[in-house]
């Protein structure tokens, strides 16, 4: 089964071969699990992904091959994760992203790379800062930078225009970087 392409497996699954579909899940599962764990947390990730993959199997007739199989599965998984997140976690924005971004219009504004490195070293800091960002920014960082989706794939997976996806990629990076540069916990002194 290792020699079969994703499209071969899709065709076999369309004919009712669930083992072929299982192989697709095995191939794309690592990235999908990583995605789901970041989006809905480790406890809910497997439940949400199981539902997403059953959705995908039931929707095989709708797969025409215009997108890569992985992108198609990603989009279905992202949709399920977004549903779950809206159901369980009301959006909380602790920082105003536009304010964060506007700071960089001042040529004198900067952050200390040593502070960014010190805060970045705490994985939970990155996670908590991601949670402070608006959904569109978080999706851009997780899907584009974390999971390597192109801007077009990000747009497709989250149902937003390509221009918005590109803008979110640019702005989300700067917003996260700016948040990392705020010394809220005296970590720079701790690191020195």
């Amino acid at each position: 089964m290792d020699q079969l392409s994703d499209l071969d497996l899709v065709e076999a699954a369309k004919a009712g071969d669930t083992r072929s579909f299982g192989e697709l899940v095995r191939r794309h599962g690592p990235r999908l699990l990583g995605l789901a764990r970041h989006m809905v947390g480790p406890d809910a990730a497997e439940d949400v992904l199981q539902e997403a993959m059953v959705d995908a199997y039931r929707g095989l007739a709708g797969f025409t091959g215009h997108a890569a199989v992985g992108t198609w599965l990603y989009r279905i998984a992202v949709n399920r994760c977004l549903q779950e997140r809206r159901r369980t976690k009301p959006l909380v924005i602790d920082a105003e992203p536009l304010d964060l971004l506007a700071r960089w219009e001042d040529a004198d504004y900067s952050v200390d790379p040593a502070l960014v490195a010190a805060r970045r070293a705490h994985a939970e800091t990155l996670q908590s800062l991601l949670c402070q960002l608006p959904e569109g920014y978080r999706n851009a960082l997780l899907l584009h930078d974390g999971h390597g989706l192109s801007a077009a794939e990000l747009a497709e997976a989250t149902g937003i225009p390509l221009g918005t996806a590109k803008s979110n990629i640019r702005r989300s990076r700067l917003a996260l970087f700016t948040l990392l540069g705020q010394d809220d916990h005296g970590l720079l002194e701790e690191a020195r």
Partner: protein
Amino acid sequence: MTELSCPEARSMVSDYIDGDLDADQASSLEHHLETCPCCPPLYASLVETLAELKALDDTGGVDQLVQRVLAALAESPEPDDPGPRRV
């Protein structure tokens, strides 16, 4: 090649990382990064931060996921619904 201010250069860095700048823009930004005393550490720090996002992955548990999906499909095996929108 255009001389860039620091704010101009910083606004282009994200597209530079993704390879989305045209050759002239990329050349201007590279020239700025070679000559500016402030921006190169910021650029390096941003690149390192984005790399850190990739490292957040924890991808164990795939076998268990496959088993769960196959068990769920065994209860409802027909791939006959139109499902999600066509791609």
